[in-house]
């Protein structure tokens, strides 16, 4: 087994086997359940058609996945440093790249668990499983780079900032900023500024792509540029995380 695979298994185990990781998944399930109940029980939301409901639930899964990846990313660097686990890890023969890929692999496993967790909800709110396949495909294709970019960015912040708390706050604020055009509503998103932000924002890109594929029935190929942007962001975040693991004058990586 390669060091990357070992670290990925270790990190995945952390989320699937440790009480803390299970608590996160339970919290995610609670949020998805609440949203599902809202979709079914609310009179206004009940007017949404099947595709819109599935799209909303898929978007929520991406958001939850990004939050969990950001928490894992901060914990993988700043948390491990505070627990004294980063120093021995960086002192092993495992290359920095492998360590980073392994930790990203762990986040990918957590995201896979999140998709598996979201699948029955997508099936339930969509009734009869309509649009389920497209939603799962969209989650895997567009959600994965967005979630991993959030995780890699959080790792970079976790390595650069002195405390886990500061890194977590910075990561969550960054995520909120990425989601802000969606939260601010459609009018702002129709403006030139909103459209420009949407075009380069991977989070908006993923949600828009899900919307286009599930609600508007557009083809996967027509969403290629959004996928390209999301993957580009993942690359940028990965490079930042890798750079943050390189020793520099005046900065101690592990203590």
């Amino acid at each position: 087994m390669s060091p990357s695979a070992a670290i990925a298994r270790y990190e995945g185990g952390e989320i699937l086997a440790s009480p803390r990781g299970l608590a996160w998944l339970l919290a995610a399930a609670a949020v998805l359940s609440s949203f599902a109940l809202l979709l079914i029980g609310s009179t206004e939301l009940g007017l949404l058609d099947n595709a819109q409901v599935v799209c909303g639930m898929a978007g929520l899964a991406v958001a939850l996945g990004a939050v969990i990846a950001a928490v894992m990313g901060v914990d993988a660097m700043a948390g491990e440093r505070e627990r004294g686990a980063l120093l021995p890890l960086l002192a092993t023969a495992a290359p920095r790249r492998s360590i980073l890929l392994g930790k990203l692999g762990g986040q990918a496993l957590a995201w896979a668990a999140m998709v598996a967790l979201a699948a029955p909800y997508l099936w339930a709110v969509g009734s009869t499983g309509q649009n389920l396949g497209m939603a799962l495909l969209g989650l895997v294709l567009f959600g994965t780079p967005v979630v991993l970019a959030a995780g890699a960015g959080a790792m970079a912040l976790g390595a650069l900032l002195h405390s886990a708390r500061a890194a977590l706050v910075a990561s969550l604020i960054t995520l909120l900023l990425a989601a802000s055009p969606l939260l601010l509503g459609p009018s702002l998103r129709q403006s030139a500024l909103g459209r420009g932000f949407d075009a380069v924002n991977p989070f908006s890109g993923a949600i828009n792509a899900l919307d286009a594929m599930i609600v508007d029935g557009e083809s996967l190929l027509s969403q290629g540029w959004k996928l390209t942007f999301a993957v580009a962001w993942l690359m940028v975040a990965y490079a930042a995380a890798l750079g943050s693991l390189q020793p520099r004058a005046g900065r101690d990586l592990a203590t």
Partner: protein
Amino acid sequence: MALPLLIEGLRVRRGFRTVLHDVRLRVAAGEVCGLLGPNGAGKTTTIAAALGLLVPETGHVRLFGEDPLDASDGMRARVGLVPERDGLTDWMTAADYLQYWAVLQGRPIGPEGVTALLSEVGLDASPDLLTARCSQGMRRRLAVARALVAGPELLILDEPTNGLDPRGRRRLLGLLHRLARQRGVGVLLCTHLLGDVERVCDRIAVLAAGRTVAEGPLQDLLGRGGNRYRLRLGGSVPKMALCVDSAPVRLLHQTQGEALVELGANVAPETAWRALLFAGWPIQEVRREAGGLEALYLSLTGARAEPQPAVADVTPDGDLA
């Protein structure tokens, strides 16, 4: 053959603060070197620099003859580390954890290897125990086993006996001694426990305020104990007096109003004090330092051992009394 670890003139800045000013240290194969110093003296930063985790401002660090910042990844497998905080994973068993670590070091081991490692540190009865259920002492021993997983040629231990009971401590020190003598491992033992140092170390380096204030074979440093004197100074030492750094008078440590000097074996103290007075040293009082590692450590790090009677007073006219 290159030394497992050699550090010379190391100066390290952290943020805007210089935390190491001039650190020198050497660890040879088959030797246990103690790294001593008060809290905040820079021991952990020195270890981080030795592992290539920070970039020094000046000076150089050599791990097996190579700069750790440029060394290959595989070279790090030659170094075993027991950090001050063990950083173990709570949800894994001891055996699984060691196998995981062996993969990271690029030298996977099977169940037999795990059993041998656990036996070496006295944990062979609990391979399937979750690390979360291990006592503090067991966790320390597991951290030592983790450091040994790749058969290191250099072992760096930061306060390894913290939390160990006397038997566990004795056992660990015995293990370090055996590793050095029988397998030729170079051991850098960073500790505050001077008894541990006296028991296993061949060599020591003492850090104070980011500087190496003494470095050499333990017996040599202890043997010179009777030749160390603390001088009370009435003002600053003139720059020209730096020549005392060379034999037969060596300036070991200097703080505001005090200096610790060591005289060569054949130097008459009175001659040395007259020479220093002539060079402009405002010496007011001279006290001989006590012998033993504790006294050596306390005097080198600026703390006071039991006060010794003054062996020479200087009159206002500059004469020895």
